[in-house]
């Protein structure tokens, strides 16, 4: 993604990170429920400099038909980045990375959605990354949960997500792009706070067993903060003091 600066200080002597945040401070998060006319549910999230739009359709007929399941509905997720969303133009066709992230997000959402209520149907989640700046899969998962709720699809809980990680031998919350590139570890965490279940977890980077446990803990606590913002976004749309 470029912009790697060898002289950049990831964590200064006062515990301040390269973008001015404290070690346990997430970036600015703004979530808006709704916004798309045609989608059954939608959400828009700004997570630091990430800008991500999610549209949900369904439950609806499954095409091709052989993908349908007589016992349960199915969830289909497409995570896609726009060619202009990153430093150097990204080819528009889905990359192997995007296919893997689509699968990981799908499996993170499945425990939350009551698909068994809609046999033979599909719920489609379309995630479009308009601008990327590290941590897109967490921001996308967070917004997708809100969009599913906005679509009125029965859910057990919402999945909130944020990454924890390690820079300058310190466990931090919400890894940005620079920290991901130059840091020591990145651990995206997706968590259902009411059900206390981790549904997305990945890691790359070196952690001692103690750091590993701390990293999971910091991520889970971060998800609880994100969860409140998800609920607020839905509350603002459906119960807010709106003029229109």
């Amino acid at each position: 993604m470029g912009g790697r600066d060898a002289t950049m200080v990831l964590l200064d002597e006062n515990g301040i990170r390269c973008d001015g945040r404290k070690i346990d401070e997430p970036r600015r998060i703004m979530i808006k429920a709704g916004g798309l006319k045609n989608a059954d549910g939608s959400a828009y999230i700004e997570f630091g400099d990430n800008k991500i739009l999610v549209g949900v359709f369904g439950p609806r007929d499954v095409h091709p038909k052989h993908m349908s399941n007589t016992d349960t509905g199915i969830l289909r997720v497409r995570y896609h980045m726009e060619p202009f969303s990153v430093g150097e133009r990204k080819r528009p066709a889905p990359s192997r990375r995007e296919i893997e992230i689509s699968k990981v997000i799908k499996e993170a959402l499945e425990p939350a959605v009551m698909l068994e209520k809609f046999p033979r149907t599909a719920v489609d989640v379309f995630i479009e990354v308009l601008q990327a700046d590290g941590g897109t899969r967490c921001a996308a998962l967070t917004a997708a949960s809100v969009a599913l709720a906005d679509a009125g699809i029965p859910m057990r809980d919402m999945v909130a997500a944020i990454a924890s990680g390690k820079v300058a031998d310190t466990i931090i919350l919400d890894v940005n792009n620079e920290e991901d590139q130059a840091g020591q570890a990145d651990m995206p965490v997706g968590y259902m706070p009411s059900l206390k279940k981790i549904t997305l977890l990945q890691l790359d980077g070196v952690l001692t067993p103690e750091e590993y446990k701390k990293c999971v803990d910091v991520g889970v606590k971060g998800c609880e903060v994100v969860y409140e913002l998800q609920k607020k976004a839905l509350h603002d749309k459906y119960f807010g003091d709106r003029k229109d």
Partner: protein
Amino acid sequence: MTSVSVIDELKRAQILELLEQGKRVDGRTLDEPRKICIEINAIPKANGSARVYLGDTQVLCGVKIQPDKPFPDVGDKGMFMCTAELLPLSHPTVETGPPQAPVIELARVVDRGIRESHMVDVSDLVIEKDKSVVGVFADVVAIDYDGNLFDACSYAATAALLTSKTPTWEMVDDQPSVVEGADKPLPITTIPVSVTMGKIGNYIVVDPNGDEWDSMDSRITITTDSDGNIVALQKGGSDGFTQEEINQCGDLSIKVGAKIREQLKSSKQESQ
């Protein structure tokens, strides 16, 4: 494979019933991996190779090492890449054609585990800075499937890399040229070991076999290095884990991984 057959339902019920008594379908304990057989140098034309049996799962890895142009922004580092593929003869449901999401995930998780451990020291694989570097390609193919390809592929790639011999190149007329009789082992810094655990009901089992794999609710693959650090992790499947289970899986991956690492080490000694 979206429909669940009656047989699958019965199989899961039986697996769960056994787990409640602390047993598994094939008689293993919950934290016991299947027998691992490693056959080094199965493909002598490759620079390194290994055939690995993990129970009835069988995979083959060949390592090819050749000069390559470096990536523009990292001219001072060689290249390492690991791929994984399911051959159509490995299972009746595998089709030819471009890889589907599960296979892409498999390949990326196997690659990530080895890459993030920094097993191959790529800074030691430079022929001439910014001009020519050494590329190490570990390609794994699944030959026979009985669950847990993640670990089988990882062990095969690791064993093949541990026993690979790389030629030495020097620049002649601006082109890399092989120095005869100067083959040497790859620069290896650590031995990564991947341990995959499945969650069936409320039970965590190490190295799920084919029947367990079809019956599990979710899975987690954790890779550790020789120092006992955790270097990569991937959760998969349609259910979640509690924080406590995630911690338990971390401990298990270190404990189980240490034994498997000894076996990978001894396969290296056998090859010498």
